[in-house]
C-alpha cells in the first residue's frame, strides 16, 4: 500500500438522494499521470473533488469510504483540509479566476503558503508558472489587467498557472485543456509530463487521444461506477469490460 500515492476504498458519494459515486476502489501511484475518462455526468469531477475534499463546500454532498493519501486517511478528523489542499492542488472544470489582476491570481497561492521570501521571488514564481501554463506570452504585458477579462482558454491556463504556482504534490486537473487550441494543449501536456517527474497527476479528459498521450494509468467511470482501471495501453487496446470497449470504440476521429 505504501507504493500508492492515493488509495481509495469503497468510496460512496451522495448528492442528497443522488448516489453519484458507487463503491469505488482505486489506487493512484506516485509519479504517474492517471486519466479519468467516462461519459459526461458519470462522476469524474465528483470523485476528483473527493480527493482533496473540495466537496466539503457542497452542503448536500456526503462522502463515505476510505481515502488515503500517503497512507493517511484524509477524512480523518485530525486532518486539516487546508493542508490537504495545499498538497493536493486542483484545476477546476469551469475556469474560475479571481476578480483580481492576473499577477495576483497567480501570486495568491504562493503568498498564502509563504513560498516566496520577497517580491522578486514572487515575480519569479509568477513568471515561471505562467510560462509553464503557456500563458506568459499573452499575459506578460497585462499582468495588472483583471484575470476575468481574459478569453476562455486564457482563463483556463491562468487557473493552471495558479494551481502549479503552489507546487502541490498531487495535481487534480478537471478537463484542463477543454478550451485550449492544439498548440496550447500540447504545451499543457508537456507540463503534465514534466510534473510527473516528481508528482502525481490526475487528469479528467474527454479526449481519448489526450488520455492515451499523457497518462500511464486510466480509469473508466460509468454511471458512478469505476468500471475499469489499469494501464492506459491496456485499456485502450484491450479493455476487459464490454462497457469500456464500447465507450472507447464509440469514439470519433
Amino acid at each position, binding site marked *: 500500500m*505504501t507504493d500508492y500515492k492515493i488509495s481509495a476504498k469503497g468510496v460512496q458519494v451522495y448528492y442528497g438522494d443522488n448516489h453519484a459515486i458507487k463503491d469505488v476502489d482505486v489506487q493512484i501511484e*506516485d509519479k504517474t499521470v492517471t486519466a479519468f475518462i467516462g461519459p459526461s455526468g458519470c462522476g469524474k469531477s465528483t470523485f476528483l473533488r473527493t480527493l482533496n475534499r473540495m466537496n466539503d463546500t457542497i452542503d448536500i454532498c456526503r462522502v463515505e469510504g476510505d481515502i488515503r*493519501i*500517503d*497512507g*493517511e486517511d*484524509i477524512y*480523518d478528523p*485530525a*486532518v*486539516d483540509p*487546508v*493542508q*490537504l489542499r*495545499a*498538497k493536493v492542488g486542483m484545476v477546476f472544470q469551469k475556469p474560475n479566476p479571481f476578480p483580481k489582476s492576473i499577477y495576483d491570481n497567480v501570486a495568491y497561492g504562493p503568498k*498564502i*503558503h*509563504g513560498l516566496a521570501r520577497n517580491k522578486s521571488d514572487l515575480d519569479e514564481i509568477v513568471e515561471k508558472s505562467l510560462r509553464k501554463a503557456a500563458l506568459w506570452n499573452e499575459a506578460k504585458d497585462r499582468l495588472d489587467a483583471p484575470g476575468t477579462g481574459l478569453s476562455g482558454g486564457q482563463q483556463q491556463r491562468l487557473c493552471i498557472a495558479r494551481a502549479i504556482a503552489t507546487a502541490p*504534490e498531487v495535481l487534480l486537473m478537471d478537463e484542463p485543456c477543454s478550451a485550449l487550441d492544439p498548440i496550447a494543449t500540447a504545451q499543457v501536456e508537456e507540463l503534465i509530463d514534466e510534473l510527473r517527474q516528481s508528482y502525481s497527476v490526475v487528469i479528467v479528459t474527454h479526449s481519448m487521444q489526450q488520455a492515451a498521450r499523457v497518462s500511464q494509468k486510466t480509469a473508466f467511470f460509468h454511471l458512478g461506477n469505476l468500471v475499469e482501471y489499469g494501464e492506459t495501453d491496456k485499456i485502450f487496446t484491450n479493455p476487459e469490460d464490454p462497457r469500456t470497449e464500447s465507450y472507447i470504440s464509440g469514439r470519433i476521429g
Partner: protein
Amino acid sequence: MSTSKHGSLLTLDARTKKRNAAEKRFRAYGLGAIGIAVAALTMLLVSIIANGASSFRQTYISFPVTISAEEIEAAESALLKTGAYNKIIQTGLLAYLSERDLLQDTPEADAFGMISGEAGSTFRKFILANPQAAGTTFQLDLLANGRIDGYYKGRVTAETAVLDKNVTPLQLELADRLAADGALVKQFNFDFFTNPDASDQRPEAAGLGVAILGSLYMMAVVLCLALPIGVAASIYLEEFAKKNWITDIIEVNIANLAAVPSIVYGILGLAIFINFAEFNQSSPLVGGLVLTLMTLPTIIISTRASLKSIPPSIRDAALGVGASKMQSVFHHVLPLAAPGILTGTIIGLAQALGETAPLLLIGMVAFVKEYPAAYSDTAGLFGEAATALPVQVFNWTQRSDPAFVERASGAIITLLIFLLMMNALAIFLRKKFERRW
C-alpha cells in the same frame, strides 16, 4: 512517505498551525462580533422589558355606584361635567368603604385620590351610553391612580411614599385592604393598546391606540411608495443608465441624501407638503411622505449594492436567449438581488418606524386624543391628525410623572413587536430568495 515535502497530513506543520490559529482567531472574531451584537441587544431588550413589561397589566378598583336622573342633569349642566361625575364616584366610594369598614384611619381625600382622574370621564361616557342606568346601582371598574398602580408594580414603596407628595403610606395600606377585599385587581391592560394618549396627570389612562394607527398609516404610505420607487430608481441607475458624469452625480447625491439629518427632512416636508401642497398638518400622509423621502436613499443604496453583486453571466444568459434587458432584470437579476433589497427595506423601515425628529416639524409630535380615520371626506386619505409610536415614546419620556417611564418602555416593546411583525414577512421572503451558485 518521507518523500512528501508537505509532510504528514496528520501532523500540522508550523505554518499551517499558524494559519489555523489565524483561522480560529478570525472565526472567533466573527463569533465575537455576533456575540457583541447579541449581547448589546439582550442588554437593551432586558432593560426595556424590565421597565416596560408591567405596562401590560393595570390596576383597577371596582365598587358599586348609584346615580339619579337629577344628578345626571345637574352634572351635564356644569362647565366641568366630568368633575361633577367625579363627585358622585367619590360618594359611591365612600359608601362602599364605610359599608365594608375599609376606610379606617385613611383621610377621605386620600381615598378619593386613589382613583384616576380619568374616572369622571369613564363614568360620563358610561352614563351617556346607558341612560337607563339612572336611578340604579351598578358596579364601576375604574382605573387606580398611577401611584397606586405603581405600588403593585414595585415602583412605589412605603418608603418612597413618605417622600412622595402624590401618595401617602395610608393610601397604600388602604389599597392593600381593598385588594384583600377583592375590590382592587390587576388585570391585562387591553386599554394600553387601544386608548389614546392621556395628559400628564393621568399616566394610568395613557394608551397607544392613536400612535399605533398613525404608525400603521405611515408605514403603509412608506411601504407603498419607498419600496417601488427605491427599487425602480436603483434598477434604472444600475442597469440602464449610461455610466457617465450625470449618473455619478446622481449616485453621490443619493449617498449624500442618506447623510442628511432626519430633521432636515422635516424642514423639507413642512415646506413642500404642508406649505406648498397644503396637505393637512399632523397627518400620517405627510408623515409617511417625509419618511418615504428619508428612507429612499437607504433602499436605493442597498438595492444598488445587491444588483451590483449579481454576476454578469446571469444577465448574459438571459440576453442570449433573446430576453430584453428589462426582462433579464425583472426575471433574473431582481429575484437574485431580492435578499439584499429586502434587507435594505427592513433597515429603512425600521429607521422610519423609529424616527421622531422629522415628525417634530410637521406636527406629529403632539398630544392627539381622537382616533384618525384612514379616510374621511374632509381630510382625505390618511389626513387626520395622528401621532406615531416613536413620538409617543419621545413624549412619554419627557413627562414628569415616573409612571410614564413604564409606559414609554411598554410603547417601545410594542414598537419592536410591530417591527418584528413587519420584518417577519421580509425575512420569510428573503429566505425564499436566498441562494448560492
